């Protein structure tokens, strides 16, 4: 036990002596979260909007005037065919189209209900959400002052349509994505580099000739990365709740538990990588190409997995961060409990255990 503590202390010395890596370890998540915080707080002004008014009555004119008066929109009032609208969206010259159908005012007066169609270019989901919210707000405001002769409320229903990205993946996705990415990066890369470094230095042989047990070497190598990762996890959670208004809605304990499962899984992958890598560079490249890319592409926070071709969807099942990402989204953003993430937790636990067992075995065999 005392030997193990000596070893773990040495590992921490390595970490603290290497200022550049230390800066990267803690700076990376902070930078990402803060940058994203700024991106979120930016208002969207003067979005190009096209209004297609097929009704041309008093009500639509009033609404259009209100929208035109808003600083958020830059109105281009010209009647265009559906084809022209589509072409404009594709070219990106307009961000939103507001379409009043024929007999808008008549419908409103006779049925107390009228529908206005709002189409937004959601390839940038943040922008699309923001500008449709602005329009909806304007329409709701206008609505409040409306009543028919009989005093019954009349409703204008904005019908929203998000083009290209109907699920509006974006903002809240980012924090869980950063979490998955940072934890994966730190655990996998740091672990494999730390072990390969000893091999490269020749110190690994000395350790193996010493009475120090192999399992202790592994534990000592994993311990600092586990602790650093947990610290990182809390930094991200605090930053995102303070700056991004994304607090953990569900149980923090559950989130931490699942995070540790994910961290252990990533550590095991790091171990596995270190067995085959001969140089620190190889270990680094292995982690970057082998882990970072699949994490970015197949986790679902940059590109929705549902929209991927089937083989890619299938492949994404073996990426641990995919399951972790689902868990954080459910627990952190939706506030769901264990009953709704037990399946993902079980998958993660299974991956963690089997990867750790495999890497442990392979590690021992390799050292013989």
């Amino acid at each position, binding site marked *: 036990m*005392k*030997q193990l503590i000596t*070893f773990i202390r040495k590992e921490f010395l390595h970490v603290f*002596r*290497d200022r550049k890596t230390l800066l990267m370890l803690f700076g990376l998540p902070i930078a990402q979260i803060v940058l994203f915080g700024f991106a979120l707080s930016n208002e969207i002004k003067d979005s190009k909007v096209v209004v297609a008014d097929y009704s041309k009555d008093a009500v639509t004119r009033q609404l259009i005037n209100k929208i035109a008066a808003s600083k958020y929109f830059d109105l281009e009032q010209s009647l265009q065919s559906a084809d022209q609208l589509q072409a404009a969206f594709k070219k990106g010259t307009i961000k939103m189209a507001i379409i009043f159908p024929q007999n808008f005012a008549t419908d409103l007066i006779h049925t107390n209900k009228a529908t206005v169609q709002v189409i937004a270019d959601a390839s940038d989901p943040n922008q699309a959400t923001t500008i449709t919210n602005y329009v909806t707000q304007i329409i709701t405001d206008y609505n409040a002052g409306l009543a028919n002769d009989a005093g019954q409320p009349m409703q204008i229903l904005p019908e929203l349509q998000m083009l290209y990205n109907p699920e509006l993946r974006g903002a809240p996705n980012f924090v869980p994505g950063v979490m998955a990415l940072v934890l994966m990066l730190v655990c996998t890369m740091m672990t494999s580099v730390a072990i390969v470094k000893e091999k*490269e230095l020749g*110190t690994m042989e000395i*350790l193996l*000739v010493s009475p120090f047990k192999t399992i202790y070497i592994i534990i000592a190598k994993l311990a600092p990365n586990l602790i650093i990762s947990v610290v990182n996890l809390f930094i991200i959670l605090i930053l995102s709740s303070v700056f991004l208004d994304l607090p953990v809605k569900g149980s923090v304990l559950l989130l931490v538990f699942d995070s540790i499962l994910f961290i252990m899984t990533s550590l095991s992958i790091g171990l596995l990588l270190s067995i085959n890598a001969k140089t620190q560079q190889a270990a680094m490249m292995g982690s970057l190409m082998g882990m970072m890319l699949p994490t970015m592409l197949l986790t679902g926070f940059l590109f929705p997995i549902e929209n991927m071709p089937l083989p890619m969807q299938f492949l994404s099942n073996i990426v641990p961060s995919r399951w972790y990402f689902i868990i954080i989204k459910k627990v952190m953003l939706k506030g769901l409990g264990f009953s709704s993430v037990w399946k993902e937790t079980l998958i993660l636990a299974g991956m963690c255990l089997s990867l750790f067992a495999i890497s442990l075995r392979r590690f021992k065999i390799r050292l013989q």
Partner: protein
Amino acid sequence: MQPTINDPGKQRSTRPVITAEKLTKKFGHFIAANELTFEVEKGEIFGFLGANGAGKTTAMRMLCGLLTPSSGKATIAGFDVYTETEKIKRRIGYMSQKFSLYDDLTVAENIRFYGGIYGMESKQIKIKTTELLQELQLQDEARTLVRELPLGWKQKLSFSVSLVHNPDIVFLDEPTGGVDPVTRRQFWDLIYHAADKGVTIFVTTHYMDEAEYCNRVSIMVDGVIAALDSPTRLKQQFAGNTMEDVFYELARNAKRKDD
């Protein structure tokens, strides 16, 4: 060539600390080390020579407990290499050809770490650290990062660290690679000093002048021990002026190439 087991040039009363009898290691069909038989006495400096790929490292790894032999017998400090590797590990020190300290730790931290993984008490480590730094005249460098020391010092420190837990035997795997002749000489002074205190030195080397410093030398060719005797006797036997001549005479017929 029959390996010479007995060394008539030396009369020591103590039991041998290393014994090997027909020690063999096969990797598939490849016989890396073939029926090695030799004994090393306590306090002896035993040189282990051979071209690259001759099987030196394999033999050394078997003796250190890093590799399990395929067949044959061997004991280190009286312990069996098959069944008592853990006990062996406590009794041996090891210094690899790559210099083996941590660059980003200080001199004192390195000593402390290696003492620590051998389970030494903090007090013991402190005493040992002072003693060791004094011997190397590095007292002022205790808090210096190892990366800032010149290579020669690192190597000497590395050797001293391999002795920090007072082992019976220390294995040195090409310890003086890349070091200038003066430092090499100083390094050998340290080796002699340790041997005088009764530590057995098992050293592999490429440098033939170093072979001259050993009490006895074994020369491996293609996995077998081709010659084993004191440097003086080997030179007589092979009618050479230097160990270089002896080595060349034996190694030129080697079939295995550098791997």
